[in-house]
């Protein structure tokens, strides 16, 4: 491409890019900065303080947040683990076995929920639970999270798996390994970066989910996002900014980790 036609040289594009980035990140930056505000006001800056972070753990709402955090983390851990196991089995079956057509179809079916509006999924899940007569509560949240975490765990795993030639398993079986041994000793270690990446992604997606959780949770059972929402409805206080900033930091760490792990090459 000649320098003349390079899109980077159109000043309009550059400006547009900056505007987009600004709109995207300005609120996050503001929330992060004001979470360290000494003032109880959410708009007037009165100097640096960790007061609201302390408030999250010891303030009047700390009991509510603690219960919600326990729910959130235990659900995220169980849902991500189970979703990762299911996604790993699915990837193994789909990428290794089957003819091409079913392979494309299965990939489409598994990743479709990523493109469906979440509200539709939420309503559908709620209708499903009502139909089978589940009482809403911790278990319904967990089951819903396992289900919607699967595609997130699946994508990095199957991407990894496609990069692994099947001659490795054939070599293992040629060297007297059964199918199961070939999977455990050769395929699984080679897939591990994809599996860890999928787990981290599923974990954070579960931890951050609001819409589906809000639909399927029972009264009195809260996760962090629903607890925050509930708290905000009673008025915006700086402790919400502190807890949001902590969640944001955790998300950034997990997503970055997931990306880094998926790019690691354990074949070297």
């Amino acid at each position, binding site marked *: 491409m000649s320098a003349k036609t390079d899109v980077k040289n159109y000043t309009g594009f550059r400006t547009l890019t900056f505007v987009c980035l600004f709109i995207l990140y300005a609120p996050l930056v503001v929330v992060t900065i004001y979470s360290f505000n000494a003032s109880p006001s959410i708009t007037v800056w009165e100097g640096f303080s960790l007061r609201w972070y302390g408030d999250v753990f010891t303030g009047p709402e700390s009991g509510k947040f603690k219960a919600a955090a326990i729910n959130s983390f235990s659900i995220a851990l169980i849902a991500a683990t189970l979703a990762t196991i299911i996604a790993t089995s699915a990837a193994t079956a789909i990428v290794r076995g089957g003819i091409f057509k079913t392979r494309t179809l299965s990939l489409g079916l598994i990743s479709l929920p990523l493109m469906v509006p979440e509200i539709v999924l939420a309503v559908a899940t709620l209708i499903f639970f009502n139909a089978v007569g589940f009482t809403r509560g911790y278990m319904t949240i967990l089951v819903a999270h396992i289900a919607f975490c699967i595609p997130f765990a699946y994508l990095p795993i199957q991407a990894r798996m496609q990069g692994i030639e099947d001659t*490795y398993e054939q*070599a*293992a*079986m040629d060297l007297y390994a*059964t199918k199961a*041994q070939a999977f455990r000793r050769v395929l699984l*270690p080679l897939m591990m970066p994809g599996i860890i990446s999928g787990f981290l992604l599923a974990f954070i997606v579960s931890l951050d989910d609001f819409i589906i959780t809000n639909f399927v949770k029972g009264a009195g059972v809260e996760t962090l996002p629903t607890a925050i929402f509930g708290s905000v409805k009673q008025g915006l206080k700086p402790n919400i900014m502190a807890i949001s900033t902590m969640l944001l930091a955790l998300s950034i760490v997990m997503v970055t980790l997931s990306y880094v792990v998926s790019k690691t090459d*354990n*074949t070297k």
Partner: protein
Amino acid sequence: MTENTQIAVDVRDAIKRYGDFTALHRISLGIRDNEFFTLLGPSGCGKTTLLRMIAGFEDVTEGAIFLYGEEIEDLPPHQRPVNTVFQNYALFPHMSVLENVSFGLEMRGASKADARTRAGEMLELVQLTQFASRKPSQLSGGQQQRVALARALAPSPKVLLLDEPLSALDLKLRKAMQIELKHIQRETGITFIFVTHDQEEALTMSDRIAVMSAGEMQQLGDPRDIYETPRNMFVADFIGDTNLLDVSVEGIAAGRATCKLSGGHRLTCDAVDGVNAGAKVHLSVRPERLFLSDQPTAAESLQGTVVENIFIGTDISTIVDVPGGQHFTVRTSNSDRGNKRILDPGTTAYVNMEPGAARLLVD
């Protein structure tokens, strides 16, 4: 049956189809115990398919495969006492060299310590002891190739399958590995089934060669057989250089056929069953079994004109046009130059044939 003629792998009427496409047409083949056996043929002729059927990675559509008398075509790969050196080596990238080599032994139930000891011995055999703790990606192509060999040999398979193991190496390394492989085969006494598309490699290394083309066996024999008495046009053309001449058979007498070239010249050669007077056939004459002279030396000497001399290291290759629009390639060894004549381009030359050099071939 004596020890020497025991059959290691017996392929009986094996057919392989992929849908409508037949990759192997009814192959029958007996590979002897302790021999260096080569499957030779151009790319796509079905060599890998046959090897994978023996290893257990492809079903046999029809027919049977026996390994030392035991029928194996329905056994899964891990139950067949054969090991493979894969074309791309397929070394486990997450394991060290030593772990790679001990993998097969551990899977066969050896203790970790025993497996490691034996793996160490195998690495000694292929001279890679100092690389035991490296990962495969930290080795050169030639070293990876030797690890693949050590890994496949470690569990002492009854038969070792090698799928074009040397094709990725450069010429010098390939020559060295040819000798090493041959040496290791002798030393271990394991039956090797070696796949290559390189006829020179096949001739150098093999005890016997099966020449394949388009899923069919063309000829089975030792390297000399294949080279000197090719059974058909394909084999004559594929193995080494040869002069292929279109001729018609004029008459047959006392086991000799008189053949007429398009230029009217006559040559005699051994007759072949089923070829009668009037048949259009081919003669194959190896260039090194022809020699040039400036005067006729026999009744069959062919007069022609030298077109070109090509220097090819140990030999000189001379192209001679003869009447009738045909030409001969004549090879003269450089060390023979004192005895045999090299003639300048444009001069008249006579092409002479050693007795028995011309071989009659049907399509």
